[in-house]
């Protein structure tokens, strides 16, 4: 199934040896197609997801093509594995997708190096919360817009918990309540079930903990919490491990990337997730899983509307205007959001929430409840962390793991983390 471009390529193969040819080719590829008025435009959009997301996104894009004759969209979809490698490599080849879905952790790396187009120019902000847009503004440019929002949540395996004659925490519950509950689960199950997965390595969990104490994980200047807060956090989990409430370190490590799998597998009774994952997780076990807000004193303390994923336009795109049209359509068009639904999280544009939430099942309804409550009472979303913060996230998990396996005390670990993180951020 060679496409028509291949034939051109095969001929070129004959002369591949000469570097001069390569250079001249580089010159002519970069001069082709500048998207004038009548010429048909071909955009490429990349995203990751599962087959359900691919299907609904494809139908939304079909709709877009219907409404905009002359523009076609190549659908470059994939799974999550390798997605970043692909985008980065294509950037270096001057061949990035025009529009793509992108995640928070690496956004700044691209935006601070001027690789993302300013969305404030061609995308309407009607119905958008100004604070929310501030979160993805880098160097004064709107580098990205949320393509779905979510918030932090906690899930409890109600079926398993009730079988033990216990009740899962709900509504307002504190970290101490969680600790007590977790230890009870371990005792009541005769040691076979942990009350909660050990979350001491999750910077996203610590972020809420820090916010509840009036601090933050990171801000634009780097670390934004005190060493004591971190030491307390790690001590909390050390106590839980000692009481048997938390999973043992080997099991924690096995489920490190996806702690909710430990609940699905029946290894732990509760864990943290993001609310947009809840429906999918419930679908993976016959047990009833309940969704609650985060533990902590005070209503929704420390939780915030978190961007689950972003939509961005590459500066390399030769069709900025058409690309902006596509982004505008996907984020602001009611019909588009009716098709897309809540698959990527809640729409950030208040005007399309209704269209998107039509047909939500009861799990999703529950997620909406939590989310709306956080919208009312929650903390502000953090501003973009400086470049290099990805390494700090990794470091957080690594140091925490050394505490889990007893190689470091919580206090020493906190001290070590502060020093190493500071050196990574330079």
């Amino acid at each position, binding site marked *: 199934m060679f496409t028509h471009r291949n034939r051109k390529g095969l001929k070129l193969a004959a002369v591949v040896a000469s570097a001069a040819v390569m250079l001249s080719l580089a010159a002519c590829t970069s001069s082709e197609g500048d998207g004038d008025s009548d010429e048909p435009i071909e955009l490429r959009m990349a995203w990751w997801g599962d087959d359900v997301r691919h299907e609904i996104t494809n139908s939304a894009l079909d709709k877009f093509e219907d409404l905009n004759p002359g523009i076609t969209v190549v659908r470059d979809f994939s799974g999550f594995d390798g997605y970043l490698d692909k985008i*980065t490599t294509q950037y270096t080849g001057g061949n990035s997708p025009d529009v793509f879905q992108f995640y928070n952790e690496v956004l700044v790396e691209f935006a601070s190096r001027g690789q993302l187009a300013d969305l404030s120019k061609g995308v309407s902000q009607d119905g958008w919360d100004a604070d929310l847009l501030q979160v993805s503004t880098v160097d004064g440019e709107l580098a990205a817009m949320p393509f779905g929002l979510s918030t932090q949540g906690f899930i409890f395996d109600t079926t398993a918990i009730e079988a033990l004659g216990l009740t899962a925490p709900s509504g307002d519950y504190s970290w101490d309540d969680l600790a007590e509950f977790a230890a009870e689960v371990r005792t009541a199950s005769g040691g076979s079930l942990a009350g909660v997965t050990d979350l001491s390595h999750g910077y996203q969990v610590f972020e809420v903990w820090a916010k509840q104490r009036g601090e933050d994980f990171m801000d634009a200047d780097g670390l934004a919490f005190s060493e004591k807060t971190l030491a307390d956090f790690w001590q909390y989990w050390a106590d839980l491990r000692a009481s048997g409430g938390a999973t043992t370190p080997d099991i924690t*490590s096995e489920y490190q990337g996806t702690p909710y799998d430990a609940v699905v597998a029946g290894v732990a009774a509760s864990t943290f997730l993001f609310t947009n994952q809840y429906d999918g997780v419930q679908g993976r076990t016959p047990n009833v899983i309940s969704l609650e807000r985060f533990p902590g004193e005070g209503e929704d303390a420390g939780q915030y509307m978190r961007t689950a994923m972003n939509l961005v336009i590459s500066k390399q795109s030769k069709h900025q205007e058409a690309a902006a049209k596509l982004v505008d359509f996907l984020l602001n068009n009611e019909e588009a959001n009716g098709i897309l639904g809540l698959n990527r999280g809640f729409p950030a544009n208040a005007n399309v929430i209704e269209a998107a939430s039509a047909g939500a099942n009861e799990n999703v309804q529950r997620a909406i409840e939590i989310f709306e409550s956080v919208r009312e009472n929650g903390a502000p979303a953090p501003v973009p962390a400086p470049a290099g913060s990805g390494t700090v996230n990794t470091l957080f998990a690594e140091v925490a793991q*050394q505490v889990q396996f007893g190689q470091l005390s919580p206090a020493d670990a906190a001290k070590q983390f502060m020093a190493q993180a500071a050196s990574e951020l330079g």
Partner: protein
Amino acid sequence: MIGFFVITLGPMLYSLYLSFTDFSMLAAPEWVGFDNYIKLFTNDPKYLDAVRVTLVYVLVSVPLQLAFALAVAMVLNRGLRGLSLYRSVYYLPSLIGASVAVAVLWRQMFGSNGLINQILDWFGIEGMSWIGNPETALGTLVILNVWTFGSPMVIFLAALRQVPQYLYEAAAVDGISRWGSFRHITLPMLSPIVLFNLILQMIGAFQAFTPAFVVSGGTGGPVNSTLFYTLYLYQRGFTGFQMGYASAMAWILFVVIALVTAVNFWFSKYWVHYDD
């Protein structure tokens, strides 16, 4: 040869250049001289972890895998009914050994709910998560490597077929034991291929990436116990946006592998038998 120069040598030299730069992939590389190399050896404890893990992996998994592959190849060479069926079945794991499914499948073997723990449970032994324990995680990856022994096995099988049958016949007449004919006929005749498998599997083990990446979810954990060299290189290059640093790591590995391979070739004079 032309292909070699354009498609491989060019990019190789370019990456050598990159190893002397600070290159984020999103901006032009900046020349920094030997900074990357200096930092690797003086200011990067994780790098030394990666070196240690990789050396252990190479030294343990390569001999194990080769011995296993040769043993199975000998058994599956001839003399039993249904051999082609066995060969195919034994090759099956290698068909899937590199796929994303392995992460999940390995958890079914060595996870806390895995097959191993179920078997231990029959004997009343309480298991643990073998892939989640820093003491055993690397061991499960060694087993994963041995599990996908299909490639060297096939190569051994092909080579066994090149050993002239009359040599064994002659040996039998002389009353040489099976072990004796293995030592004096099979091994010498197979030695060029043993060398091939040894060198290639060593190179492969030095560069092992996929098993650790999929089983640890890209972290190299627990506690860096499966942080293979190329996994760390990947973390630095693609997740940390430090491709210059990663290139420096790659070139150090290149030199090490080249030295090890050269030593292998040099020693091969003493045990590899060629006809030419």
